[in-house]
């Protein structure tokens, strides 16, 4: 089977406008979550990971006049630009563009400062990115709730392994909008504090915004150490459209299938990047699924207390961080963890650790009962 390698990547978030800046913030325990005023909340505001407009505009100005683009488009363009600038020889005619987003430019439904109405369509967002960088192929757009960013990596891997294409550039992004905030608020899912994934005192999620991009290829890079995706799977819970399965059925099955494909067992996994939204039900479901998978002792973290839940970007952002955890042999702490609040044992990472790492597991789950698992492997030349 064709190997699938992860090349350069970029994360655009409140923690920085490159992967390096993001990793530095995480190592220093810095969170992008801040209290923002919002009249939807009785308390007058909510914690979220929002990128300042001035920061975006300043970064955008460095690559040209991006005034005719929405905030999300600017974020995605910045992410793609970063990756392409490190791969100037990339043949775009042999490169598939995959775009992952949960809600795209949905904020335009509420307040549209002069964009055409159709701009709210995800196909328009895709066209903007395609045209800006002059990709020749039609982009694939994936909108599969909160697993979108991870599913995009899985789809990319499958396209490469089926020899449909040589390279894939995956870009994902979502913004914080009143549309999404009011919806999660109607579920009483939003915490009034910074979220505390897996903690006994967790009270819900925070929302966040980010864009990320990563280049994938079938050609073995020249570097001596590379990260591959060796297993991927998704599975539906077939249980409930807005709540996770109590038995973690779909996640359990996703993990099992991904490990099988990667040719590894639970014992081989050195690190898990969990979904860890900080809601009572999600974190519990994950703990159940991991225990059922014999993964309960594996060091685990959630990045949600650094970013909030960035929807269609989250699993992509977290996969990129997982890649760098493997490359750096580092385990990053799960911010705001204050002791277990799930019924099954979990080995939550509380301090930055140096440790030899070879295999990592990334999982995500979302509305509609969707679940996703990816296995990452560090390949070192002899």
């Amino acid at each position, binding site marked *: 089977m064709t190997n699938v390698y992860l090349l350069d990547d970029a994360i655009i978030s409140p923690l920085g406008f490159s992967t390096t800046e993001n990793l530095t913030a995480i190592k220093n325990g810095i969170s992008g979550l801040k209290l923002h005023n919002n009249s939807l909340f009785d308390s007058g505001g909510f914690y979220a990971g929002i990128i300042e407009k001035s920061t975006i505009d300043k970064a955008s100005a460095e690559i040209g006049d991006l005034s005719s683009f929405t905030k999300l488009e600017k974020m995605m363009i910045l992410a793609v630009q970063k990756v392409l600038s490190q791969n100037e020889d990339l043949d775009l005619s042999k490169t598939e563009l995959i775009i992952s987003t*949960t*809600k*795209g430019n*949905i904020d335009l*439904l*509420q307040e549209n400062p002069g964009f055409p109405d159709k701009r*709210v*369509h*995800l*196909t328009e967002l*895709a066209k903007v990115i395609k045209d800006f960088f002059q990709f020749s192929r*039609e982009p*694939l*757009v*994936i*909108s*599969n*709730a909160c697993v979108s960013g991870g*599913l995009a990596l899985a*789809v990319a891997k*499958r*396209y490469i*392994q*089926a020899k*449909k294409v040589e390279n894939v550039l995956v870009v994902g992004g979502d913004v914080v909008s*009143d*549309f999404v905030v*009011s*919806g*999660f*608020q*109607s*579920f009483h899912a939003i915490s009034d504090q910074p979220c505390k994934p897996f903690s006994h005192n967790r009270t819900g999620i925070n929302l966040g915004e980010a864009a990320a991009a990563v280049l994938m290829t079938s050609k073995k890079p020249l570097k001596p150490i590379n990260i591959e995706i060796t297993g991927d*799977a*998704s*599975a*539906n*819970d*077939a*249980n*409930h*459209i*807005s709540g996770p399965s109590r038995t973690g*059925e*779909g996640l359990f*099955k996703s993990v099992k299938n991904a490990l099988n494909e990667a040719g590894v067992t639970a014992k081989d996994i050195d690190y898990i990047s969990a979904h860890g939204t900080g809601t009572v039900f999600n974190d519990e479901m994950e703990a159940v699924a991991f225990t059922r998978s014999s993964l309960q002792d594996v060091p685990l973290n959630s990045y949600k207390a650094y970013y909030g839940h960035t929807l269609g970007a989250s699993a992509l952002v977290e996969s990129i961080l997982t890649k760098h955890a493997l490359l750096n042999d580092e385990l990053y702490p799960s911010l705001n963890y204050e002791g277990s609040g799930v019924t099954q044992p979990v080995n939550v990472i509380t301090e930055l650790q140096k440790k030899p790492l070879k295999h990592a597991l990334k999982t995500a789950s*979302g*509305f*509609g*009962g*969707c679940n996703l698992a990816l296995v990452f492997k560090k390949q070192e030349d002899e």
Partner: protein
Amino acid sequence: MNRDYRITNFVKIKNHKIYKGREQIFSEERSEDLNSFLKNAYSSFNMSYPKFYKMDSLCKLGTIATEVLLKGRKIHPETALVFSNSASSLETDKIHQNSMGKGVSPSVFVYTLPNIISGEISIKYGLQSENAFFISKTFDSGLIHNYTEILLDLNKAGEVVCGWIELKNDRYDVFLCLISNEGEISFSKENLEELYLFKDE
């Protein structure tokens, strides 16, 4: 790889008509109203599925279509769901947006994701299988053919329900196919395209 896959069956829902294969099995000429069309189709197929009434229109369309496609069939437990459309969940998005300030309902908000239809169908048929929802400007036979073939070739699925479920300004266009090893029509991009465009006139 590249085993012999077939378009085992297909369903179309458009212009107040429902087709199973090339045969029209339901039509409603008088009514222009989407809700009554969906309700009458549901009744005419003797579906007994109370969850149907809670769904948004996009999910109702998908649920009726898969009922037509899968009724009476022994369903492969690894039947993947590969759906696509252009408008995502925009009809329900607008309902949610218009409710802001007046009281937002979680039972509306949950339908502001296109892949909820995959969840609804997974629940109805007990399918713990692969799902993907793609967005394309028009029905993209190449995309649906490619990805479905990839899932089958890579053993990520045993059979696949795939196609197009579009709803925009109360105008709907549904075309779903069951892909397996059975049937006369070979599974190709060209055949998908032809069946999608087929009109009984």
